[in-house]
């Protein structure tokens, strides 16, 4: 019984993305509980992948392939899950780059890693005004707003977004986390962002800890 979930777990770790759907179907047909597949199969697997990344055993493309595999499985079990169980498990994140900044490689990486870790991620792409960030965050009831900037000239838009969030009275409710080459912990503190992450892996850890606290 437990073996099928273990198999799914291992398939995520080994990023068998072409075979995972079939295996999940099989598990569901054999009466496996969707929530158990999620927690003991998928999310547990991504934790293992994260650990292996930290020790240098796993490279980024492999981690992303695992995340992709996990997402395919997640889509399969979603109809069976209690509504909002995914979101309530981890959290809802809105992520995008600031106004006038179209550099989005880092942001995309963070979004994929978050999905892999089981978050509900709404990627609003590039060139977002503070209003864009806020209206999407309201719409999906986000707990986390991830803002990215690559340029020192666009970085001030992060501050404006935080200010706009304050004006809307949402600052306490929505945690802002910032990232990008010119951004630092010091800058995050200055503008009142709750978190700063230097890379995608740290971003996931940081967001987990923000939501736990």
């Amino acid at each position, binding site marked *: 019984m437990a073996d099928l979930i273990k198999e799914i777990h291992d398939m995520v770790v080994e990023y068998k993305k072409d075979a995972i759907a079939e295996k999940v179907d099989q598990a569901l047909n054999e009466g496996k509980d969707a929530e158990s597949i999620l927690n003991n199969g998928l999310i547990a697997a991504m934790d293992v992948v994260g650990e292996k990344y930290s020790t240098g055993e796993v490279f*980024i*493309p492999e981690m992303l392939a695992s995340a992709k595999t996990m997402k395919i499985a997640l889509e399969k079990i979603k109809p069976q899950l209690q509504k909002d169980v995914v979101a309530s498990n981890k959290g809802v994140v809105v992520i995008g780059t600031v106004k*006038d900044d179209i*550099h989005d490689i*880092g942001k995309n990486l963070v979004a994929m890693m978050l999905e892999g870790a089981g978050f509900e991620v709404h990627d609003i792409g590039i060139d977002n005004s503070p209003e864009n960030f806020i209206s999407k965050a309201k719409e999906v009831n986000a707990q986390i707003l991830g803002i990215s900037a690559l340029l*020192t000239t666009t970085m001030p838009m992060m501050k404006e977004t935080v200010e706009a969030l304050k004006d809307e009275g949402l600052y306490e409710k929505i945690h802002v986390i910032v990232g990008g*080459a010119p951004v*630092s912990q010091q800058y995050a503190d200055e503008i009142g962002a709750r978190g700063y992450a230097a890379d995608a892996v740290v971003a996931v850890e940081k967001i987990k800890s923000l939501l736990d606290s």
Partner: protein
Amino acid sequence: MLQFPVGTLRPSMRILSDEQVVAIHRAAMEIMNSYGMQVQDEEALQMFRDAGAIVEKDRVKLPEYIVQDALNSAPTRVVLSNQKGERSLFLEEGKTYFGTGSDTIYIIDPETGERRRVVVKDIGNFAKVSDALPNISFIMSMGNPIDVPSELVYMYEFAQMVKNSNLPIVFCSDSGPDTEKIWEMAAAVYGGDEQKLEQNPFLLHYVEPVSPLKFNRTSVQKILTGAKHNIPMSFPSGANAGSGAPITLAGAMAMGIAESFFGLVLQQLVRKGAPFVFGPNVSVMDQRTTVVSYGCPEWALTQGAVTDMGRFYNLPTWAYAGSTDSKRVDAQAGIESTFSVFAAMACRSNLVHDVGYIEYGTTSSLEQLVMANEIIDMARFFMNGIEVNDNTLALDVINRVKDQSTFLMDDHTLENFKTAQWYPKLLDRQNYPAWEKGGSLTMEDRLTKEVNKILSNYQPEPKSNDVLAKIDQILDAGL
């Protein structure tokens, strides 16, 4: 009859065969013809459309003849003057010039050794030290200062470079309006003579598209403004393998070359004959850390390959060297910078930037710059080859000294020792007791000492008060 002298081979290196060059060219052409580039600016879209490009919404595809036209009108050699108006960098076959890099976030403070944000004074210090170093031939800002208004950052950078050096300047800008102001400042250096500046530019505009295949609006605006004034330009994308470009170097290069040509075409549409320095920056994004490497062998390879492509297109080339991923100027910094400097020089890349970067281009270091100056010197000696003639074969000397114990006493040694050998300035060759007596200084110690010596003793030839006043006036007026 007097016999011909033996020629000297200067070692050089090619990365690509003729067949490989053509294959990469074809791939780049396919990308330009068939996939196209996303252009995020209406004015540029219209210009491409008028020129005969295929424009589908915001995607521009270039038929081959448009690319050929641009290649035909771009000059095959670019000459940059120094700020005194003396033509000094000849970007043409076989010539290599090293210079610093653009906007880092941090600097290693030369006094405290602390990593801190860049302030405007640091730009001046880098310009000054570069001016003092014989192997640094052009300057870039080396930092993005936080103590000036953010919309005027590039103007302040330019002013600092003008005030602290007379070397040619490769500058960045934010968009069209500050490019115009920088042009005004540059003209002020020539006493307001814009025509002289157009003909003998001491500045080159560094503009970047965004990989993959995106031509952002601000870059368009920079080109429209710069080309109008005939400002020489490089348009290197960061076509970094595994992030903005395919993980495999050939594809990353082909895409980067295609991106680079979109800039060339737009520039030539604005002004036929405007000078262009060819080549993308093709490094790798490390698949373990997501860091874009500034010390990897891959970039050393691709820049050599880009130089081979430049020969094929008959355009001067852009490259990088003398930087490191290390957080400090240490053994890793020494290894990585030596590797890239040697490769860039062996391949004869023309305009080689980023000398002095550490921490994968996030931090700049005066020590790293001074160290690279020494590495360049060493590589220069190597590439000069071995002269073979009667004097250097020294047969008569051998015959003369053969019964004695050493060549040290012979006049031939006295007459030739200065040119026959390379003497390091900072690498240590003392015997142990002498080294110990001198304070047991490590290379790092000597670099810091040298940096501070230059900073306190060196004075670049100053600009006239009129020029300085005009520069400040333009700065104060803002945008």
